[in-house]
């Protein structure tokens, strides 16, 4: 075990343990999936027992939930908010429309592929995903974090130009301010 390169040190293990058990979720309902979030967070499903709780501003948050389709107008804000979040940060794509456009495949105002614009760690399928599947998504993310594999933010940093190019294709007249985290 000591010779295994991929094994985590004890510090990393503790870090990942705390990170996975304390996910501050940014209060940003980007789409209609936000309607299942109250249900997920309240008494029947109670995501807080997994350590998921709301955070009011991006500086405090770890987890960005893209709840459904993103219109181009929202995408701009999402990118801004995502870049303001501090590392380590995770993105969950929520609902079919983030995966492939869903039922809005021919709408001129919604993006079809979320992961071309910001890195996504976990997708949750469904329209809309039930609270159970949302919680399953959280659990999936947690297991990724515990394994140290939820590295979407690192990907974003590394391939910023690629993402910027994609973003500029839909964002017109929107200053992509200095890269900041």
């Amino acid at each position, binding site marked *: 075990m000591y010779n295994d390169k991929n094994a985590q040190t004890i510090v990393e293990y*503790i*870090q990942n*343990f*705390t*990170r996975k*058990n*304390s996910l*501050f979720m940014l*209060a940003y309902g980007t789409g209609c999936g936000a309607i299942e979030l109250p249900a997920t967070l*309240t*008494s029947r499903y*109670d995501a*807080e*027992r997994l*350590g998921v*709780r*709301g*955070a*009011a*501003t991006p*500086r*405090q*948050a*770890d987890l960005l939930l893209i709840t459904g389709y993103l219109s181009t107008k929202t995408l701009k804000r999402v990118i801004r908010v995502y870049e303001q979040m*501090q*590392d*380590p940060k995770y993105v969950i794509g929520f609902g079919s429309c983030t995966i492939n456009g869903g039922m809005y495949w021919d709408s001129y105002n919604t993006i079809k592929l979320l992961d071309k614009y910001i890195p996504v760690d976990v997708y949750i399928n469904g329209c809309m995903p039930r609270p159970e599947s949302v919680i399953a998504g959280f659990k999936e993310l947690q297991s990724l974090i515990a394994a140290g594999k939820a590295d979407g933010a690192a990907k974003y940093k590394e391939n910023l130009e690629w993402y910027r190019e994609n973003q500029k294709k839909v964002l017109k007249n929107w200053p992509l301010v200095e890269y*900041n*985290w």
Partner: protein
Amino acid sequence: MNTILFEILGAIATILLAFTVGMFYGGARRKIIARIQNRVGPPVYQNFIDVIKLYSKETSIHHGAMQHMGPVFAITASVTSLMFVPVLNGGGWFWFDNLSFSGDLIFLVYMMVFGSLGMALGAGQTGNPNSAIGVTRGLSQMVGYEIPFVMSMVALMTQFHTTSITGMMEIQAQSGTWMMFSNPFAFITAVLAMLGMFHYSPFDIVHAPAEVASGPVSEFGGKYLGLMMSSGSIFAFVKLTLFVNVFMGGASNLIELVVKTFALYMIPVLYGVTSPRYRTEQAITYFWKWPLFFGVISLLWAAF
């Protein structure tokens, strides 16, 4: 030399004690609220996880020196106040000879606002309007609750002719009566003021998420937020211990301390679960109505 070393070790132990107790109280609060809301709630140690995560989070930006120092001011205030509040009867805990002989209640009252002012400076430099609005709300509210709080303290001081906490604890030990019985109105006033001091609902107007998006802390993340959460836990312990010392005869061992402080802590927690939030001016006028009335009565009680 040895004594100083032991003192410092003891002080660190005291800080750890306060931190742990405060953190567990925060966790217990979340748990209790969850149970009231028909939920399971996070584990009691959830706040520890949160704080460690916040420290392990990267903080890659700051808006300047004052923002950097804001949380430091906050923790300075809470730790220093802790140093001056006797944890147990007859002084400190764990080799630590408490510093309460070198500071009295007036000092503590001032020390307790030190942190919020420092924090306010930090929040101010971020330039976020939410922060500034939160700060003005917080400071305004502070004027509200400090007055009844000081009234109750002054009532006790004039009644027992001492301004030091140890002095008050000794008086209670000698007479065998807790001060919450020897001057009940002062206790009522102080408890009402304490509701405001804890910034829980209905007095959570500083951080009110739906109004100012967590207010002063809206630009603080990572290590800053972690330091502030730690400071908040220590400060909660300080406040509770102070109230227990002054009104409930202190504690002779840790278990007694925990029982008493937890009982006291339940007052703002349970009041908070069932109350909506005040507007700022309503909160101030609230403090300047009944608490002030009880404060005047307690002063009269003390005088005659």
